[in-house]
């Protein structure tokens, strides 16, 4: 048995999916959070079935790749029931897709989501009436609170194999969007009773948050608090954690000894474990909580609105802010989210620029090195410098590839109160990704580094990149951490301990060297995972182009940083 969740963007498909499948699909109060297919075996109502979460789409004609994914899936796969998730607060537009879905010879279950919002908007919807008019089954749903979920799947199971009997009046406008639009809005009108809507604080918030002056000030303030919050929490946890692990490592060294290969490998591996606990997680977790909050509240589209005119200056438009913001978490989903952009040129520039965004792995290097030793203001400065370089690169790229798209069309979702569960689950989901995919690499990398040093092999790797370290005025021991940074950017920091022979980097590196090294790490070559994603989304040629570009930028900015630093 296979059920497919289909609906317009941001109608809550992934929220519903996560309710029954555990947290497996990314959610956010933003259009097009889901850009790929997530499938899961689910047990509900005493049965086990396949549940598929498809990317949100307005129509089945598909203008961007994310929308085509949904159409292709429905065209080519056997689905037993289509669960059409509908945002009941926007019934007229939602029903257009419903009418279009009628062409599939598959039973459709209409899940009327966001019924709590409907009440807040002062609306009354006659779901059963609507259902019998169309010849479909309808169920009310509040996916975010898990209400109606079980009933929904019980209904879906009942529908399996049942004959498809739709009202023939609605079967006819497969290819005529105009009559579909008209029929949908008439349907919605017929079954919705609009009473007085009570304006609440939430409706008034945009008067300030989208205001030309106050809006931008609030945005700056929010980002500043976000930054300070992450730094504050991380700084609180990092030193005691480091101390704790170092005392353990010293004890173990005492047992095995630090002069034999076994001891060296064990210590190396443990240092990798320590790096995850003490250096990465203290910054990563608060960052992800903050990002999740902003996403679920629905603030990201507001940023798109505020930033649109600025983004045009770097050859993009406001919608492309999403890859940027996601990029601060991880560049891989950022590259993936460029799918929601309609033009190929926009996708390329957005992908190129978002690989320059310091992801949380690089955040760790910035905080662990620059902020920790030089102070938080230097870290903030580095982020501003990074933004400046991104803007410059954007201008340069849009000179090569002139802007052709007329601009953005983006739905502004209402503010929603994020649930604790959803924000925590989302952060945990992303932390888990780090633990499964990156942490083992960190541990192994740290172990390899220890072996390289024990057998005095690191110098051969160092020689490979000596031209770079020499030009940037860095000690040659930084060569290996630099090379391994291509695998995972955190490695560049983690391997320093071994490379420099001390965890107190301040005693061996000058501020200038720290800053230049970090700048170089931020810009040079996206990590392997990002490169693979660029290749998948945009093609091999683009991947090499972006990789070469980032290396060039890293060299130029690194050199400038070194030379300016030498002046003082």
């Amino acid at each position: 048995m296979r059920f497919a969740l289909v609906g317009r963007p941001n109608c809550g498909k992934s929220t519903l999916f996560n309710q029954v499948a555990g947290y497996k699909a990314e959610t956010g109060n933003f259009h097009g959070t889901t850009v790929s297919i997530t499938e899961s075996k689910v047990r509900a109502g005493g049965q086990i079935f396949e549940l598929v979460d498809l990317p949100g789409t307005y129509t089945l004609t598909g203008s961007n790749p994310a929308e085509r994914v949904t159409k292709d899936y429905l065209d080519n796969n056997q689905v037993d029931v289509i669960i059409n998730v509908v945002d009941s607060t926007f019934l007229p537009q939602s029903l257009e897709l419903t009418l279009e879905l009628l062409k599939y010879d598959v039973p459709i279950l209409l899940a009327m989501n966001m019924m709590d919002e409907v009440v807040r908007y002062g609306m009354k919807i006659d779901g059963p009436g609507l259902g019998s008019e169309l010849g479909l089954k309808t169920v009310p749903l509040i996916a975010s609170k898990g209400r109606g979920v079980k009933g929904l799947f019980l209904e879906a199971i009942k529908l399996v194999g049942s004959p498809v009997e739709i009202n023939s009046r609605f079967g006819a406008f497969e290819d005529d969007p105009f009559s579909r639009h008209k029929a949908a809005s008439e349907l919605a009108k017929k079954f919705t009773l609009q009473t007085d809507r009570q304006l609440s604080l939430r409706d008034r918030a945009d008067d300030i948050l989208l205001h030309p002056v106050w809006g931008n000030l609030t945005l700056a303030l929010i980002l500043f608090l976000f930054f300070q919050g992450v730094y504050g929490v991380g700084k609180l946890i990092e030193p005691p954690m480091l101390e704790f692990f170092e005392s353990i490592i010293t004890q173990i060294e005492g047992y095995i000894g630090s002069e034999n290969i076994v001891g060296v490998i064990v210590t190396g591996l443990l240092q990798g474990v320590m790096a995850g606990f003490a250096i990465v997680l203290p910054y990563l977790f608060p960052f992800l909580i903050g990002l999740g909050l902003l996403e679920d509240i629905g603030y990201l589209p507001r940023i798109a609105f505020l930033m649109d005119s600025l983004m045009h200056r770097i050859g993009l438009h406001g919608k492309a802010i999403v890859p940027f913001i996601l990029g601060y978490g991880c560049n891989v989903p950022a590259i993936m989210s460029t799918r929601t952009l309609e033009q190929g040129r926009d996708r390329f520039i957005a992908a190129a620029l978002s690989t320059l965004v310091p992801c949380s792995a690089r955040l760790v290097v910035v905080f662990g090195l620059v902020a920790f030793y030089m102070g938080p203001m230097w870290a903030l400065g580095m982020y501003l410098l990074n933004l400046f370089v991104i803007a410059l690169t954007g201008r340069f790229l849009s000179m090569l590839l002139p802007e052709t798209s007329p601009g953005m069309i983006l739905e502004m979702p209402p503010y929603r109160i994020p649930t604790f569960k959803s924000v925590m689950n989302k952060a945990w989901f992303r932390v888990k990704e780090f633990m499964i995919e990156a942490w083992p690499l960190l541990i192994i990398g740290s172990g390899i580094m220890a072996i390289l040093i024990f057998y005095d092999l690191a110098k051969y790797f160092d020689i490979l990149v000596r031209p770079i370290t020499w030009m940037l005025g860095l000690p040659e021991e930084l060569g290996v951490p630099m090379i391994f940074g291509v695998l995972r950017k955190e490695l560049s920091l983690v391997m320093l301990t071994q490379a420099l022979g001390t965890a107190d980097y301040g005693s061996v590196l000058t501020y200038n060297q720290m800053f230049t090294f970090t700048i170089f790490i931020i810009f040079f070559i996206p990590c392997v995972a990002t490169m693979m994603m660029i290749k998948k989304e945009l093609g091999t040629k683009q991947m090499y182009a972006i990789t070469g570009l980032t290396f060039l930028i890293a060299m130029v900015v690194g050199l400038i940083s070194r030379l300016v630093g030498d002046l003082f």
Partner: protein
Amino acid sequence: MKIQLNELGENRSAKIVSFSGGKKLLDRMLQHGIYPGDKLILKRTAPMRGPYLIEIDGREIILGRMIANKIIVEIEE
């Protein structure tokens, strides 16, 4: 009276008449559920050639300035 959307003042409503941008723009608008004949309210405009925020049937949509300029609306007196 038919005017371009950018000539409509903030918080005023009008009916969409057409899009002056050929088939491609029309398709894009339809895909986002914006149809000629729909009533819209211009809720906000951002300075410095920033975007417009319109409302159709209670649904808020951000439109880039270039797109907004291509929407022809009719004010109903």
